[in-house]
């Protein structure tokens, strides 16, 4: 709390991004973990909560007649514009936020104070939900070709790898250690995915320290061992996910890539995904397009193309497709690396696994996938997503890109995934939120040193508890789309990549379809299930009654009445929406409404729901938010259960007469 100069400021205005006329008056609070804006309305008192960890940048703009504007940009793409009446107050808030958004110690992060009121055992159980040993067993290892290797048990060989890795049977400790000395950051080739149908595997590593001519016997033996672990093929692919030019430039620095002459029986391939700096700039440019005020179609499309974002997404996807094909169709093992083997390698391996194995398209499987290829293999969450204040050049939307690849696949294959878009958005949200301990630090070693599992909670447990919200109603495990490998169309396919407005314009409600098909179908599904259960029960009763010779008619009519009662009503007045400004300058505004179960709010609920106890200063009326949780469609009896509906609250401007 010592960084907070001003814990409370009154008469602050929260501006709508596009229309300054739609400002809301309220009070701004600063706590140790959140910035909170509470609207002054009488009944609604809508609250906007932002975790400090989510704050990406704060901009203090020039003071105007109305006050001093403060622009907060968040890592989950929320943009909040406040106007603080006094310049001095604004400055204090600005300075405080700058410090609060850049913690220097892990202990400052929210996960260490977050209290979901679970006891110690429940916390432990939460962490045990995803078990990687179980996962490797499910894949079919260890077996005749693959073994667990504990040479890294004290992180002595590679400090960014986990303690347990899986290596080919013929790879001795000597080979592994030798190979690790020849790899950047000591990240030697290790198993990422094993396909038990044909023994092909996906292995991952970092670049070899080959320079122009260096060789390493053990590293060459390591690759041979990988090849031998797949008797069905006499060669392996080595896939370097960097553009050829970058890889070649690395040679001058004593690193580089595998020379086909030196490594027997490999086929080498560049895939050409750009590096973290290019990706960071690409996202930046795309966000600038999103921030344009009333862009024309032209502005938008050109801006999107200039950012190159979709091109990069496609590049990652193409790499994943190549590897999945190699494994599933050719039965050839693949070794994947980039420079350090913790960014593009992780993206590409996890996309390939997702395409290959339907298990990763289930909710549990997806959590396992992230735990395996991202968390355990040392993706640098802290550096990439700024848990702590660090080098801005290390920040890059690496996992965001992977998550977007998954969404693009969901759009192409609507029946193939057990989870829905909301699941992905919430995961992305919490990678940055630092509310849970899963995505802290840069490696397993660091997390264990900080005793994360004993001091924080697991996101997976929370998501699993609420899994009903994250289900895809179109998923059926026996559906043809969900079986086997996914085959996205390769070419032509540019048009298949869409701009993900659900993520990048997440908080602009006016942009999204007002009615959630997913939620409706889930409600339908549940009701059908309930009705079927009812039917069964009544059927049994009927049988019993027949035995005791009562009239049939009484029972039948009862049945009918019950089904009518549970009838779903989708049309109710909460579907009303308000027009945006269709006038000349086409200023658009999202329809404001007291949030009634909006999807976004449930993310906030995860943050503030249990904060009430630990922050007694807050007299914030959070009844509405918790009320929202109850509204979530579990039993659609009667109407009014559809979330994300705006109420009929109209905006009062005669909007288009500016023309």
């Amino acid at each position, binding site marked *: 709390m010592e960084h907070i100069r001003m814990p409370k400021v009154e008469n602050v205005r929260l501006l709508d991004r596009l229309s300054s006329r739609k400002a809301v008056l309220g009070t701004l609070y600063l706590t140790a973990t959140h910035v909170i804006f509470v609207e002054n309305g009488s009944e609604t008192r809508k609250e906007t909560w932002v975790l400090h960890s989510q704050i990406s940048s704060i901009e203090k703009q020039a003071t105007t007649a109305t006050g001093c504007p403060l622009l907060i940009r968040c890592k989950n793409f929320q943009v909040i514009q406040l106007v603080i009446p006094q310049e001095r107050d604004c400055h204090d808030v600005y300075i405080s936020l700058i410090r609060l958004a850049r913690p220097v110690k892990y202990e400052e992060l929210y996960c260490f104070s977050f209290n979901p009121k679970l006891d110690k055992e429940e916390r432990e159980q939460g962490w045990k939900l995803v078990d990687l040993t179980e996962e490797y067993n499910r894949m079919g290892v260890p077996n005749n070709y693959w073994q667990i290797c504990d040479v890294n048990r004290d992180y002595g060989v590679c400090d960014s790898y986990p303690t347990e890795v899986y290596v080919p049977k013929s790879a001795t400790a000597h080979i592994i250690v030798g190979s690790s000395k020849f790899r950047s950051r000591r990240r030697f080739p290790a198993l990422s995915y094993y396909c038990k149908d044909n023994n092909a595997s996906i292995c991952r590593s970092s670049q070899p320290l080959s320079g122009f001519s260096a060789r390493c016997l053990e590293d060459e033996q390591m690759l041979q061992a990988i090849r031998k672990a797949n008797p069905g093929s006499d060669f392996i692919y080595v896939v370097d996910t960097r553009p050829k030019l970058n890889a070649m430039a690395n040679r001058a620095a004593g690193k580089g890539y595998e020379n086909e002459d030196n490594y027997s029986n490999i086929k080498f391939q560049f895939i050409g995904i750009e590096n973290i700096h290019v990706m960071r700039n690409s996202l930046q440019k795309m966000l600038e397009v999103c921030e344009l005020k009333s862009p*024309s179609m032209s502005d938008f499309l050109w801006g999107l*193309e200039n950012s*190159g974002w979709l091109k990069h997404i496609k590049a990652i996807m193409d790499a994943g497709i190549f590897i999945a094909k190699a494994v599933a169709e050719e039965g050839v093992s693949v070794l994947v690396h980039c420079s350090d083997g913790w960014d593009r390698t992780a993206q590409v391996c996890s996309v390939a696994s997702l395409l290959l194995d339907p298990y990763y398209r289930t909710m549990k499987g997806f959590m396992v996938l992230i735990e395996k290829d991202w968390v355990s293999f040392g993706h640098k969450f802290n550096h990439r997503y700024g848990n702590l204040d660090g080098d801005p050049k290390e920040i890059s939307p690496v996992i965001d890109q992977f998550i977007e690849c998954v969404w693009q696949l969901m759009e192409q294959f609507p029946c193939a995934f057990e989870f829905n878009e909301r699941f992905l958005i919430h995961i992305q949200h919490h990678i940055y939120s630092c509310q849970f301990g899963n995505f802290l630090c840069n490696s397993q070693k660091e997390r264990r040193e900080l005793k994360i599992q004993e001091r924080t909670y697991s996101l997976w447990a929370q998501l699993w508890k609420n899994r009903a919200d994250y289900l895809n109603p179109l998923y*059926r495990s026996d559906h043809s789309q969900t079986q086997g490998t996914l085959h996205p169309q390769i*070419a032509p396919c540019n048009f298949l990549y869409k701009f993900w*407005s659900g993520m990048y314009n997440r908080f602009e409600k006016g*942009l999204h379809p007002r009615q959630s098909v997913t939620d409706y*179908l889930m409600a*339908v599904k549940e009701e059908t299930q309930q009705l079927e259960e009812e039917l069964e029960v009544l059927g049994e009763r009927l049988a019993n009654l027949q035995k005791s010779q009562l009239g049939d008619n009484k029972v039948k009519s009862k049945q009918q009445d019950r089904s009518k009662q549970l009838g779903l009503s*989708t049309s109710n007045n909460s579907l009303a929406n308000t027009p945006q400004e269709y006038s000349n300058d086409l200023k658009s505004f999202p329809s404001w409404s007291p949030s009634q179960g909006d999807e976004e709010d449930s993310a906030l609920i995860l943050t503030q729901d249990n904060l009430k106890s630990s922050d007694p200063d807050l007299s914030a009326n959070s009844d509405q938010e918790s009320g929202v949780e109850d509204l979530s469609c579990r039993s659609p009896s009667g109407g009014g259960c559809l979330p994300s509906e705006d109420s009929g609250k109209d905006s009062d401007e005669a909007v288009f007469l500016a023309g």
Partner: protein
Amino acid sequence: MLRSSQPLPGPNRRRCREDEALLGTILDEAERGFILDTRSAQAAKQARMSGGGTEPKSSYPQWRRLHRPLERGRALQESFARLVDACSDPSLSMDRWLGRLESSRWLSHVKAALSTACLAAQCMDREQSSVLVHGAEGTDTTLLVTALAQVILDPSCRTLMGFLGLLQREWIEAGHPFHLRCAHSAYSHARPKQEAPLFLLFLDCVWQLSRQFPFSLQFGERLLLTLFDNAYASAYGTFLCNNEKERSLCKVKENTHSLWAWLSQPKEQQKFLNPLYSHNILVIWPSVEPQSIQLWQGLFLRWIRPSQHLDEAWAEIQRLVEEN
């Protein structure tokens, strides 16, 4: 909502008492009306030189004129052809796809059409005012705006039969020259002067509405695709000729079958219904932000990308709803 063609004051600024009286009967004493002209102010002014023009403020004091230029004619056809070209070009890298999409300008036209229709709807619903819509001839962009505005405003136009009725009224009987406009479509090199995909633009806008309001239209994409097909080449006489006069001369009603008759058969209707439909009495206001307007893949990529997975998804939706 009224529609017409442009008034003809001409270079001499003629007046027409009958026309003024006619418009005068629409409004009460103190009321105000809006004239939505689908030409730019400049184009409308230029039209005066060749005998056309706009309603002068002095002669029509109760009416306020708004200009919302909508593309039509040659330019729209070019836009369509370029889009189809871009979609079927297999060599396009991701780098250039969006640029090509943009330079076709098709989505900009969709955005403009939706915005203008919403404006007309706003005049009526929010301002409680009457609107007169016209362009030059009153047979193209005019009909686009009035028909679309009705889909937005009127829930009965969103039912299957209501929509077909809307088409009959606002496109066919109103005299949209289908024969001229839908002669050759996008691939032909002929490029006849009168060819223009206004009707397709309308269908695209309706598709955008169905995407933004998945529960509010009683019909689905399949109907829109069928209408598109039939506008260009049909076993039915519904879209023949250019106006009612020609149709009666050619004895279309006696010699051909009606598409509407076929579509309204219960067996056929089933195929076109939207399983998610539930009657929504409210006005549906679409977002016209660029992010909200998407390429109609079902039409433009129809033969280029397999629709199998999406069809399966719809089949699943149908199944879920029916089971219930």
